[in-house]
């Protein structure tokens, strides 16, 4: 059977045009998807049943026991941390926030090690963004800064920019100018009309130089900035100012490098300067399928997009203090619930090591690098495969995940709801 218009849950593009061929409970073919989509949908590395760590290894346990033990661990903790949330749907994320509020816990999502700094910059100077549909139909200049969409978001260029035909851009490859700015000559750089290779960690200077040129103050610039000839920056600034509609996409090259959120702030302010000449927008390339959704859900419930601390009985937000890596690095939390993410693989080891010292519970369909660090793990459905729900694309457009396979696994929202209800029952709230 072929299921049409399946939404790929892997990356923030949330491509919603996949055709998936299913034989019984097995996905045998994925059409229209990229390499990453095919691997995500056809892979089979599911944990068969809940497991608990023992003195000598691991034992299987029932969901009832695992849920009861999870609630007991979280209730007994003074400073529980609830982390992850970006590879599941909004319905599960919402219950997670309510559990955090009941417990007085800290809840953080994966944007903390992804586009958290972008959010900090947006909170300082705003977000002149737009939907991907606008970019597809209007943008004649596209800038990819500190990102490599060819490898991280493989269909971004073919669906929305370089190779996508749009209403006002009928011949994409001829009508669009693509500029890539990076420290490495990546595959994305190879297909750019203009590639600016920056010395590592000096994005802020180049952004500031471009702002100066756009402001008409280019004469003050030195001959070379961050390894780039001044003439190239003049050329690129002119391309941008002459655009009918320009779109900047940026990645972790800005958020993870020296300067972090200040780099992003400078990029937003460059966009601001360009809007004195033409229409220009800027947006982050979001990683996990529903990481944007975790920011949305956290914000509409608590007022804050990530790193929310309920210890005071109200929502408190102070990235750098209430962010997951900092809490783990300080050895501050005494229990952790990890949902739909893998800090064992993606946190610095000094932070991940603390998860092994405390009772850590993992709710995730797969055996991950966090599995060895946890006290118990419960497998669940995969949002977008055997569970439906709401996800947010990288441009903030909500898209409904389809459920196209039946499975015996519980939805993570159902597991979380049972933990939530158990906590309320014990608390008498």
């Amino acid at each position, binding site marked *: 059977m072929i299921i049409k218009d399946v939404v790929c849950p892997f990356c923030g593009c949330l491509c919603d045009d996949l055709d998936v061929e299913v034989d019984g409970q097995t996905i045998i073919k994925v059409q229209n998807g990229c*390499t*990453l989509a095919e*691997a*995500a949908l056809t*892979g089979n*590395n599911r944990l068969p049943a809940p*497991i608990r760590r023992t003195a000598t*290894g*691991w034992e299987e346990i029932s969901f009832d026991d695992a849920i009861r033990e999870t609630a007991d661990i979280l209730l007994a903790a003074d400073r529980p941390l609830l982390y992850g949330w970006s590879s599941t749907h909004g319905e599960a994320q919402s219950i997670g926030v309510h559990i955090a509020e009941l417990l007085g816990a800290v809840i953080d999502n994966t944007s*903390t*090690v992804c586009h*958290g700094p972008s959010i*900090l910059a947006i909170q300082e100077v705003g977000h002149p963004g737009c939907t991907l549909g606008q970019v597809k139909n209007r943008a004649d200049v596209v800038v990819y800064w500190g990102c*490599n969409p060819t*490898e*991280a978001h493989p269909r971004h260029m073919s669906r929305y920019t370089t190779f996508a035909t749009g209403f006002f851009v009928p011949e994409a490859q001829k009508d669009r100018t693509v500029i890539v700015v990076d*420290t*490495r*000559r*990546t595959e994305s*750089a190879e297909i750019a009309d203009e590639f600016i*290779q920056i*010395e*590592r*960690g000096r994005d802020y200077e180049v952004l500031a130089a471009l702002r100066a040129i756009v402001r008409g103050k280019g004469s003050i610039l030195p001959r070379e900035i961050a390894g780039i000839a001044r003439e190239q920056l003049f050329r690129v600034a002119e391309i941008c100012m002459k655009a009918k509609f320009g779109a900047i996409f940026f990645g*972790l*090259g800005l*958020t*993870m490098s*020296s300067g*972090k*959120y200040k780099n992003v702030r400078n990029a937003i302010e460059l966009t601001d300067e360009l809007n004195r000449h033409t229409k220009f927008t800027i947006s982050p390339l979001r990683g996990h399928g529903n990481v944007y959704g975790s920011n949305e859900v956290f914000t509409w419930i608590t007022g804050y997009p990530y*790193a929310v601390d309920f210890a005071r009985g109200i929502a408190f937000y102070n*990235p*750098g*203090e209430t*962010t*997951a*890596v*900092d809490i*783990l*690095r300080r050895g501050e939390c005494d229990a952790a619930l990890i949902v739909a993410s*893998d800090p*064992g*693989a993606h*946190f*610095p*080891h*000094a*932070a*991940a*090591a603390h998860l*092994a010292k405390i009772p850590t519970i993992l709710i995730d369909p*797969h*055996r*991950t*690098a966090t*599995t*060895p*660090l946890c006290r118990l793990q419960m497998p669940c459905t995969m949002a977008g495969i055997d569970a439906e729900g709401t996800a947010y694309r990288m441009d903030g457009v909500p898209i409904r995940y389809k459920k196209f396979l039946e499975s015996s696994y519980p939805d993570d929202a159902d597991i979380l709801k049972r933990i939530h209800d158990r906590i309320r029952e014990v608390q008498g709230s």
Partner: protein
Amino acid sequence: MRAVLNTGRNVPQGVAVEHKGSPDYRAAVSVCHMNPVDLMELGSNEGGHVALMSRAGSVVLTTRVAEGMNRGEVFVPLGPYANRIISAETHATGMPDFKGEPVDVVPTDEPVMTIGELMESIGGVWYDH
């Protein structure tokens, strides 16, 4: 050799990311991409092993030539190997220095650890059933 560490996504890492115990994932994320001249000056060949040492720790990786890399810069796909040498310091931003950690790179005959060994070295117990 003194270098600056860059980490990030690539296709092999993304394809194998849901199979953390697999040989494909280990092969995808335990590599150090280097400028060919840097590799030559190091006296190593592609496929040889190097130890990367930072303020946070050290890790042994397999080298791979990357023509597009600047000299003095190395790239390791994000994952548990790169995170062995990334400091948990966030400078009050919540974000570690995943791009920009200074490292020393030296050739070595030491083996590349498995993911299980990496996780057990920080207190984990590998689950492999």
